[in-house]
């Protein structure tokens, strides 16, 4: 057996053990959906970081920086600063006023059924798109990392899918939380080690490192030798639309993170709003340290391994593992590969539980059965079935798309929908007294449609490929893009807000006004908030 495979199996064995342990402590809705609200602040902080730092941030960001230098580092900055929106605006009111999902907060003073149906739809869209991107990436990556062990793309996708279903169906939020914590610690440890090795390579002289970054040598598309300063802005975002796209990306990150359902559900796993706050700060310390270290990962790969070598040895996503191999050989390559694998598994498990929770709690119990759980345990049962279905659907779509599919845009889309549909209605619901059901439905609908519509006509899906690009890697629409930006945020976020405001002003809802004081007091004081329950 290859060393990466042994390490993968080790991680699987440990996490399955945790799932077994958690399965005995997941009886009842609060235990299954919110880990009994007993997760400690630092634990939840690490778990938030684990949920957030996906393969896109570990492998993707290292690759983007390795190939496009400084512009890639701008992703790193946005991914951390976004947590200020979570900290200052969303986390505490949500914990104070909600139960299991973001829709709980909306349903307080608005008509529960239409609002929950829309919020659930938006949650499912964000989670599924994000998940398909992770699954396709996971399949391609695992097949590549385990090259030689006979594991194909299909086997890898099915394996990842089954594991995530097992974690969520049997272990619920408790198992998912601990999978996130282990993954986050592994990821931080691996990244720190890799950063130290990069510095050691330069004799621990930062000046030598930055000197190398200023002189990255590679061959361009025509085969000519190029020497570039990788710290110069503009390698990715070029005029005329680059600057606008950069601002649009910034908006989607800053306002989207606070609307990502799989991040928001994490704040229900702690006992109170104060603990939720502490967990955001813990998450910010970890996430910030990690993204600062992407300097070493990305620029290290650019300078030590070089874009030429990466291109011929698996492409951009392999930058970090190849850097590990170059610095410390095959065992370290195996270790970093196993971390990448753990990263993917943890993120898809987090997405699965948020999607299935929203389906069971918002759609099944509250929309279809009008808030009544007909039998004890029905909600959890439905969530388990939903987790299974979500997993099976993602596996199928990922296999149909295949390893070469162009799916990077799905992550951008998830952030755009979260920023344009979810965030406006959460914020307006908490801060605007006049806000009502028509506004919430309008905001969610317009934000969702605007994000999807604009991405469909953006360069992500609409471009003319040369004949050398084949199959699923080709763009969906072979014609010049109508909307010039890759990220729709700059337009779709204002549209989401406008949808919510116009919808509100066009209708009257006395009950939403009457219950505003209740939501205001609840969200700001924690009076009447959901309490932690004793472990079973």
């Amino acid at each position, binding site marked *: 057996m290859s060393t990466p495979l042994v390490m993968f199996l080790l991680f699987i064995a440990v996490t399955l053990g945790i799932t077994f342990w958690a399965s005995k402590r997941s009886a009842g809705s609060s235990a299954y959906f919110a880990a009994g609200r007993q997760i400690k602040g630092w634990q939840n902080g690490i778990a938030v970081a684990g949920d957030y730092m996906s393969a896109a941030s570990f492998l993707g960001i290292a690759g983007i920086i390795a190939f496009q230098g*400084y512009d890639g*580092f*701008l992703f*790193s*900055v*946005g991914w*951390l*600063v976004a*947590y*200020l929106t979570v*900290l*200052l*605006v969303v986390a505490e009111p949500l914990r104070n006023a909600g139960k299991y999902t973001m829709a709980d907060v909306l349903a307080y003073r608005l008509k529960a059924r239409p609002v929950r149906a829309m919020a659930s739809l938006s949650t499912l869209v964000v989670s599924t798109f994000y998940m398909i991107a992770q699954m396709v990436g996971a399949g391609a990556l695992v097949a590549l990392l385990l090259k030689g062990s006979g594991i194909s793309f299909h086997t890898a996708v099915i394996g990842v899918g089954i594991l995530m279903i097992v974690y969520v169906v049997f272990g619920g939020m408790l198992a998912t939380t601990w999978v996130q914590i282990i993954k986050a610690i592994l990821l931080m440890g691996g990244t720190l080690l890799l950063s130290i090795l990069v510095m050691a390579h330069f004799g621990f002289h*930062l*000046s030598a490192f*930055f*000197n190398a*970054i*200023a002189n990255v040598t590679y061959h361009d598309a025509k085969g000519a030798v190029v020497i570039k*300063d990788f*710290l*110069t*802005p*503009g390698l990715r*975002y070029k005029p005329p639309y*680059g*600057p*606008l796209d*950069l*601002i649009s*990306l*910034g908006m989607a990150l*800053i306002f989207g993170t606070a609307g990502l359902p799989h991040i928001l559900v994490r704040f229900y796993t702690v006992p109170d709003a*104060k603990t939720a*706050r*502490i967990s*955001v*700060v813990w998450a*910010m*310390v970890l996430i*910030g340290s990690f*993204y*600062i270290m992407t300097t070493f990962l990305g620029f290290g790969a650019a300078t030590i391994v070089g874009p030429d070598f990466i291109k011929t040895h698996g492409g951009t996503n392999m930058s970090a593992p190849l850097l590990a191999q170059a610095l410390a050989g095959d065992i370290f390559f195996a270790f970093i590969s196993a971390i990448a694998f753990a990263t993917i598994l943890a993120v898809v498990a987090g997405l699965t539980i948020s999607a299935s929770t929203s389906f069971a709690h918002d759609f099944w119990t509250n929309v279809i059965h009008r808030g009544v759980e007909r039998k004890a345990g029905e909600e959890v049962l439905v969530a388990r079935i939903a987790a299974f279905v979500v997993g099976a659907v993602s596996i199928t779509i990922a296999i149909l798309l295949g390893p070469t599919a162009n799916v990077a845009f799905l992550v951008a889309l998830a952030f755009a929908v979260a920023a344009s549909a979810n965030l406006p209605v959460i914020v307006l619901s908490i801060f605007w007294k006049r806000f009502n059901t028509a506004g919430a439905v309008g905001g969610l609908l317009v934000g969702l449609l605007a994000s999807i519509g604009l991405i469909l006509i953006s360069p992500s899906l609409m471009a003319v490929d040369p004949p050398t690009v084949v199959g699923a890697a080709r763009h969906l629409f072979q014609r010049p893009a109508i909307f010039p930006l890759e990220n729709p945020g700059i337009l779709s976020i204002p549209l989401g807000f406008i949808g919510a405001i116009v919808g509100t002003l066009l209708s009257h809802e006395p009950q939403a006004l*009457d219950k505003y*004081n*209740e939501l*205001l*007091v*609840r969200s*700001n*004081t*924690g*009076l*009447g*908030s959901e309490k932690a329950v004793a472990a079973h």
Partner: protein
Amino acid sequence: MNAMPQPIKPEAVSGTEWDRIAESAEFKDLMATKKVFIVPAFIFFIVYYFALPVLVGYAPQFMATKVFWNVNLAYLFALSQFFMAWGIAFLYVKAAGGFDKLAKDIIEKSARGGK
């Protein structure tokens, strides 16, 4: 309001009680105290953050100015964002300790039946 001070389950808070709290001086004080910190902090971080893509996007030559070794303004400004975010988070946690105290008083007063 009930004359007897009795501990009530928060879940049993009535509709009029929410209104009473929302109109109370203590609650208005809490909201004002929160606003004094959160609104300026939010505006500051939004302006500071979006200055980065705007400057990098529209003044790339200026941002490429080298400061020391081969480190340029663009990288230093990007790096400063991390410390800005941590700094605001630190200040917020300190300020929020005060919010917690005010909120606790409001909850306790409500449990005493508004006295």
